[in-house]
């Protein structure tokens, strides 16, 4: 019996996120607001009457929401900074426990503090028990802190009024174009509006890498985590981000590797490929993904992929190869669509 001094997480992670929010994130919002203000100032002398009033009201709302979002970025940065401080305190406490264990003559192997070899050494035994209790309490306190400060704050970062404003603008713009010229005269602007109007759930979905990452993590918490990972993809970059956020274990790397390949072909192809996999294989992948996620803080996770019989691994390989073969058309089509936006 021993207890572990492994840190639950590095403060560098939230610190990097805090830095990104304060610099890249806030700078982008400020630059965006500057451009909008410049547009408004330029339009003042040119858009008058009803059109000027409508534009002015629209831009006023836009700037209001930009300001609100900026405050959310700053608040998130503050929160991540607090989390980094808490993890730093966590690591300091663990380092202190290590020093006390060594000073008391206890054996420390890597991150493990071993119990005294002599069961009759009551002083060493009490020290070991005290330190084990201290570490246990700290782990509990850290989880409680995360629950009370981070998890409890998640809902407060959603901004339904902003999303309602975006939806309303997109819908009204789209319907205005339709009523003005009919479906046949839709321009690039119309197609863009159509894209948003037809797929308003996109605004309920998340863009780019954050969407995939969120989907991936949500999938890992679901009933069929590997399937969720398999179909969550939107692209190589996104998949790379998702992999980087996952606990680094061979099992997860295997599942995530499949995800990376699957994302090349897009989620539809991935879903088709997943459906073609035998249940035995998908069940094993689900278990592997779930265990890998559950074992985030554990040292060493069993490599479940090795438990998949070779024929099933071959089947998976063939399916992934099929997805890659079919991916080029999908990617080509995707780029064509992107070009129409340009």
């Amino acid at each position, binding site marked *: 019996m021993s207890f572990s001094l492994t840190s639950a*997480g590095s403060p560098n*992670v939230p610190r990097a*996120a805090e830095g*990104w929010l304060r610099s*890249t*994130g806030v700078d*982008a*919002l400020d630059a*965006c607001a500057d*451009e*909008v203000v410049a*547009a408004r100032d*330029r*339009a003042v002398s*040119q*858009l008058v009457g009803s059109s000027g009033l409508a*534009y002015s009201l*629209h*831009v006023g709302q*836009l700037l209001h*929401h930009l300001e609100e*979002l900026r405050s959310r*970025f700053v608040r*998130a940065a503050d*929160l991540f900074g607090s*989390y980094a401080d808490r*993890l730093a305190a966590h690591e300091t406490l663990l380092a202190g426990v290590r020093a006390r264990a060594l000073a008391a003559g206890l054996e420390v192997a890597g991150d493990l503090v071993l119990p005294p070899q002599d069961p009759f050494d009551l002083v060493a035994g009490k020290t070991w028990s005290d330190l084990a209790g201290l570490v246990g309490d700290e782990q509990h306190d*850290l989880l409680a802190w*995360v629950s009370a400060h*981070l*998890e409890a*704050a*998640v809902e407060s*970062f959603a*901004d339904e009024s902003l*999303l309602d*404003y*975006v939806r309303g*603008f*997109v819908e009204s*713009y789209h319907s205005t174009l339709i009523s003005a010229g009919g479906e046949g005269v839709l321009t*690039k*602007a119309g197609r*863009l*509006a159509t894209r*948003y109007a037809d797929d308003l759930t996109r*605004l309920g979905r*998340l*863009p*780019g*890498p*954050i969407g995939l*990452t*969120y989907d991936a*993590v949500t999938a890992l*918490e679901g009933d069929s985590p590997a399937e969720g990972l398999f179909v969550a993809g939107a692209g190589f970059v996104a998949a790379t*981000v998702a992999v980087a*956020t996952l606990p*680094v274990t061979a099992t997860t790397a295997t599942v995530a590797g499949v995800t990376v390949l699957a994302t090349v072909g897009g989620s539809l192809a991935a879903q088709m490929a997943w459906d073609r996999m035998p249940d035995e294989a998908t069940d094993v992948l689900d278990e592997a993904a779930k265990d890998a996620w559950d074992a985030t*803080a554990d040292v060493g996770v069993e490599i479940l992929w090795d438990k998949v019989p070779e024929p099933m691994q071959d089947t998976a390989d063939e399916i992934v190869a099929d997805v890659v073969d079919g991916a080029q058309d999908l990617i080509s089509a995707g780029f064509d669509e992107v070009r129409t936006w340009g």
Partner: protein
Amino acid sequence: MTELRIGADLESQVAARHHAAAEELSALPGFPALGPGPGTLAMLKIFAAVLQCSDGLAATNALTADAVRQVAHAVRETDVEVGRRLERVLPDLGPVVP
């Protein structure tokens, strides 16, 4: 002449500014990768919430730019139409050349 200048300015100054505003936000989803930890999932959810909003505002700016371009187009068409009507009712003036 005045209307045409305004139409061009709307496109080159106002619409272009909104397009640039959208571009400023379009790169935001490339946030840094997050390592494992007890708060990683909550951090991801917070990132998701704020980046969803920035994506929506980027889309709004992109559509605003297109809307302004539509207005500029309408201004130019109106100018041409007014010119034609003037030619009809005031034939002695000859063609109205911008």
